[in-house]
């Protein structure tokens, strides 16, 4: 059988996807250099370098440790929201889900004398249940996911506030207040450091999302469905099952994150989590995930969370009024997204000319 060069099919166009460069980079590296993640990483490195030079306190073990711990909640949620965005959906109800899961798990947990495992199991289950409700409305009734999740955000949150009267839970069990501290050691100033609950769960959450998206067949189905839903249906993908998985997964992650946050705050406040959903969404989108689905990576989400965390931390360290905080965050998102869109357009234009 004669070979067809794809060049002939492309009508004299260049061979796609394997460009030559002045530098001899491997194709994988070359792809990375053109990616959204590459630019994010570069910005993060430049920003970190600048902050390290401008302040004494940025590049210290204590600051990095604090950064990780205090951004764990947003990071864990980002790993879950990423999965939903890749599947072509969106969900903003997860902060309400987290509030409910937190309250239910700790109320029952205190009464029954639960340990860590049981607490996480209850919080995770409540989260999955909330996610399931979203998935069923979105898939069965084909309502747009943003609308469903706006509604469920209010329903979950409203129910919680009405039934609790907005009361705090402050008397948490001792083991919970103590948290965990693995590999404990002291730094030069005698400050103790350890692998705490926040960092542990944060790392596990990103590993889990990465495994799900890149190593399982169902993860690849999620990418495919996000890229072309009609084609996925034609090929026999089980859309309802996939939606239950992604929204359930985000719910589960929200449940887990809620306990991590409660441990850090040392209390349960029903009103404190709702409102953070846009921060999480911003971080994931900054990380390159597309609101139209099919695009995004765990590495990108990590970078998105990192950039926003460093930016906010840097402003504090530089002593800039916290009122400027949001302004900078907004500007960063707008710039990052514009640069990506612009470079994508340029790439396409260059290809059209070829």
């Amino acid at each position, binding site marked *: 059988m004669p070979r067809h060069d794809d060049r002939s*099919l492309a009508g004299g166009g260049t061979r796609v996807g394997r460009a030559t460069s002045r530098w001899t980079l491997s194709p994988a590296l070359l792809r990375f250099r053109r990616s959204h993640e590459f630019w994010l990483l570069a910005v993060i490195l430049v920003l970190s370098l600048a902050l390290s030079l401008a302040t004494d306190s940025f590049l210290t073990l204590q600051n990095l440790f604090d950064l990780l711990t205090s951004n764990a909640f947003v990071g864990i949620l980002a790993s879950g929201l990423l999965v939903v965005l890749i599947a072509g959906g969106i969900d903003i109800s997860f902060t309400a889900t987290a509030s409910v899961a937190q309250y239910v798990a700790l109320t029952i947990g205190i009464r029954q004398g639960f340990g860590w495992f049981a607490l996480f199991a209850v919080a995770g289950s409540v989260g999955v249940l909330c996610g399931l409700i979203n998935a069923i409305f979105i898939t069965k009734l084909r309502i747009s996911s943003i609308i469903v999740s706006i509604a469920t955000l209010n329903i979950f949150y409203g129910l919680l506030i009405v039934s609790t009267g907005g009361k705090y839970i402050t008397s948490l069990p001792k083991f919970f207040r103590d948290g965990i501290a693995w590999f404990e050691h002291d730094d030069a100033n005698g400050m103790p450091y350890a692998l705490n609950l926040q960092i542990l769960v944060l790392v596990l959450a990103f590993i889990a999302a990465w495994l799900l998206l890149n190593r399982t*067949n169902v993860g690849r189905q999620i990418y495919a469905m996000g890229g072309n839903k009609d084609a996925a249906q034609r090929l026999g993908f089980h859309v309802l099952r996939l939606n239950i998985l992604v929204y359930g997964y985000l719910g589960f992650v929200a449940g887990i994150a809620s306990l991590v946050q409660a441990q850090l705050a040392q209390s349960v406040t029903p009103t404190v989590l709702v409102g953070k959903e846009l921060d999480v969404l911003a971080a994931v989108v900054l990380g390159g995930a597309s609101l139209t689905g099919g695009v995004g990576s765990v590495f990108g989400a990590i970078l998105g969370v990192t950039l926003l965390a460093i930016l906010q931390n840097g402003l504090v360290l530089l002593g800039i009024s916290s009122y400027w905080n949001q302004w900078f965050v907004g500007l960063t998102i707008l710039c990052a997204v514009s640069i990506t869109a612009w470079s994508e357009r340029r790439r396409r234009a260059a290809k059209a000319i070829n």
Partner: protein
Amino acid sequence: MANLLDVHAISKHFGGVVALRDVDLSLRAGEVHCLVGENGSGKSTLIKILSGVLHPEPGGRIVIEGREYPHLNPVQSTACGIQVIYQDLSLFPNLTVAENIAVAGHLGAARLVNWRTLRMTADAAMARIGASLDPDARVEDLSIANRQLVAICRAMAADAKLVIMDEPTASLTRHEVDALVRLVADLKRAGICIVFVSHRLDEVMEIAERVTVLRDGAKVGEFPAREMDDKKLAMLMTGKAFAYRTRETDLAKSKMVLSVSHLTRAGQYEDISLDIRAGEIVGLTGLLGSGRTELALSLFGMNRPTSGEIRLDGKPLALKTNAQAIEGGIAYVSEDRLNLGLVLEQPISSNILVTVLDKLPSRLGLVAEETRRRTARKWIEDLAIKAPNPDNAVRTLSGGNQQRVVLAKWMATQPRLLILDSPTVGVDIAAKDGIYEVVRELASKGVAILLISDEIPEVFYHAHRVLVMRRGRLTGECVPHGSSEEELQAMVDA
């Protein structure tokens, strides 16, 4: 040799409407077969039955490789090696070439991805048809032709014995079509049966053995592809013969509608003078870049001339915007029907009425539903738009009927002058005929028509007079009656 696939007496109704009636089809291994018919002839219903998505009514039989399938379902159809490549190709733009080809692997029983197996599947499929695409390239970065190649590879990876391709050449360049034809010849040699589904005479018919023609849900017949030509196929598809004669009408006494004198726009066209009378169809032709579209846009107020004069019904017009042109009674239907303001997702009625909403009788600015309905229905009937319901989205109509909706939209403004820029690009011969009929009717109602086209026969047979434009100037005029196509062609090429 036994047939790869035989279907006998397949029928399907949707509600009371016949989609297929007693249709037979037989396909052999290693054959290229064309399935043609107009929109609504039952082609897609037949494909859906072959792919197991729809079930035929009792009495029909489906036999694949000697085995009868009373209830063919999608899984069985795939297992029998039937693969359909839809016009949109159903690829995942965000995934790599390799993953798109081997995507079925993700649906298997295994929980974890085996990237090595996936890559081997993709490589093997590409090797089978001799494609050399970069397996790591993302599909969205490929040309349409290469995407089609990926879709064919995916069918190969699924061990296809029968590949059904829906309108495969619709968005390919001539060059790409040639490559596809070579590829199909290879598939044929490898014993794979290929079915092309189309509503027009395709280039791929050159390598087809047989053509099956459907009309209104019934099989017209099966013909050797060698004996087919454009006219014969159109005749079989529509049951009508299309022969045109030049037009001869004495319009000397008719009122002058448009008169343009010494119109110039620096750098685009120069010193254009032309007249169009009521009921007259004036053709305007010329090579691409001759300035004809620019001139048309000037007449529609979207491209201000530097000097010269435009008179409509004897009154001078200073056109600054197209709103003024519409107000003055000029309508313009541009080249690409999908881009001329049809909102495909909106109902047919809204699309027709959008230009006249503020002229319909209203109370406090609200138009009564009844008035809307009546007006829309009138235009749908006047222009013979085949639409079961004016509330259906325009998207559900065939190309030819969409084109008529565009005409209806402009006719609703009751124009004095209608400018048609390449009105029949991309529509099949029967739909073209429908459009010509509408244009003739409009002219007979006294509308002045400027018909711009690349196609010499189009202007020759459908205009009373043809003007030839070259490098921004009018260089010739031809009255088709008493002249010949060759003569007009010579004027264009001069």
